[in-house]
């Protein structure tokens, strides 16, 4: 029973980090209809940038804030340099460009930081776990989860109550109608990339604290895909619930199935689950169902 609860809780906590990256994914899709396949690399850059600031002796919280700022700048640059010219082109073309961007970023990271594993030194989170009753949760996971929830609430409030959040959703719904009201699509796309970069960056920084920072942090981007699809590609709550679900599934697969299917069932199980799930709920949990009027 204790094993079950431990698996569940740590699954939820890991899911928090997935949720962060999934949020970035959903944001870009929600605003521009583009499936951003460079999400993993955004995470990677976030991890390295925050690590660099931290090793310069800047406190962790401050280096996260700086990572956010760099994320905004990079997001706007990416949109302006690569994607601006593609407004109005078929979505598939834009998606392929994001694949190109992902290779570009991966190369850039290897060029600047090399391929060795780096760690946050001195460690930020103490190795002593947080204890709630008989449950022991590692500090990194605990704070990642808290941060994911906080960011989630901030995003929800942003989209629900601020004019920019609403304008971004409006652009996703009908770009021309939004333009006719003076909402600039270019601004909206730049903003969505900036925000996605921010959330991926924080995710990357946290993940780097768990496993150290290497190129493999970037694979998280792909791992998060089931979470995004599960929640519905354009639902912010969906990203969080999807992320946490995937975290739990992965942990359970690791704990209970690994003995029967040794070697990597943990990584595959979420994808298998997603495939089956999609058969029954093709739009995901809270994805937009296209409104057709007869």
């Amino acid at each position, binding site marked *: 029973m204790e094993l079950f609860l431990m698996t569940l809780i740590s699954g939820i906590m890991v899911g928090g980090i997935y949720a962060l990256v999934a949020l970035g994914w959903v944001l870009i899709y929600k605003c521009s209809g583009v499936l951003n396949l460079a999400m993993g690399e955004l995470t990677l850059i976030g991890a390295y940038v925050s690590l660099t600031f931290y090793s310069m002796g800047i406190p962790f919280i401050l280096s996260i804030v700086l990572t956010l700022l760099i994320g905004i700048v990079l997001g706007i640059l990416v949109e302006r340099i690569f994607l601006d010219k593609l407004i109005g082109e078929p979505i598939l073309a834009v998606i392929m460009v994001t694949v190109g961007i992902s290779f570009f970023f991966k190369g850039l990271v290897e060029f600047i930081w090399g391929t060795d594993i780096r760690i946050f030194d001195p460690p930020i989170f103490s190795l002593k776990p947080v204890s709630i009753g008989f449950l022991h949760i590692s500090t990194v996971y605990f704070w990642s989860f808290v941060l994911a929830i906080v960011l989630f609430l901030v995003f929800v409030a942003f989209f629900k109550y601020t004019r920019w959040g609403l304008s971004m959703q409006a652009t996703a719904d009908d770009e021309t109608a939004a333009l*006719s009201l*003076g909402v600039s699509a270019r601004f909206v796309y730049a903003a969505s990339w900036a925000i996605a970069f921010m959330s991926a960056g924080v995710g990357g920084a946290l993940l780097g604290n768990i496993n150290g920072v290497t190129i493999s942090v970037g694979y998280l981007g792909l791992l998060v895909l089931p979470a995004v699809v599960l929640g519905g590609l354009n639902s912010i709550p969906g990203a969080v619930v999807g992320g946490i679900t995937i975290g739990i599934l992965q942990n359970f697969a690791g704990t209970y199935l690994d003995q029967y299917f040794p070697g990597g069932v943990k990584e595959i199980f979420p994808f298998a689950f997603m495939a089956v799930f999609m058969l029954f709920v093709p739009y995901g949990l809270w994805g937009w169902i296209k409104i057709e009027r007869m």
Partner: protein
Amino acid sequence: MQETDRILRVNNIEVKYHEVILVLKGVSIEIPRGGIVGLLGANGAGKSTTLKSISGLLKVEVGEVTDGAIEFEGVQIHKKNAVDIAKMGIIQVIEGRKVFEHLTVEENLRVGAHLRKTGSVKDGLGLVYHYFPRLKEKRREVAGFVSGGEQQMAVVGRALMTEPKLVLLDEPSMGLAPMLIHEIFNILTKLNSEERISILLVEQNVKLALNVAPYAYILENGRVVMDDTSERLKENEDIKDFYLGLSEKGKSKSFADVKHYKRRKRWLT
């Protein structure tokens, strides 16, 4: 009409799509400040294109004003982009009730207010709900699921939220029940007289438009073929014949008459 009275002046514009397809071949329109002007014509005459060249949305569709000029309050705007034109106070209500389907009615309205100062959003909502009480009832509902008439109201209300000086309305009556059309046009007239919003009204429903707008232009094949006060247009034999469906009682029309009209129309341009 006095020189200073005109809020918008479209001066003999020519519009091309993709640099080759000539759609407008010399359209001139003048709108008095605080007035309603009708822009009438059949399908494909170039009505929507005229509106889009004023609002700047033309550029999204790879169209361009290649000749002539558009002046808004004395400033040339045909080279400006849609966002800047919207900021100057020209708002186009595009045809087909393009609500933001996944947002609620009130969120739709608030998107319209995104250029306003924070404090005045409430005032704007109050104003819209004053003219469209039905929207207040439906304000928490998802806009994709309210009725067609309510969507049209939401779209006009959304334009109103931007505090426009000139609204370009593209076929507000399309696909609506006569009762609703009546209601919406009543509100439009009230908005014009009480809020002093100038309106350029594009309609295929000529009878309706001539009742609302005191002055109208008839567009055919990318050209203005006639413009006059609505009173006189209503009496014009050709207009009666081809747009209002009225002709001398009982007589069937022969094809020769139609050709005669076509000939004469060419002469008119």
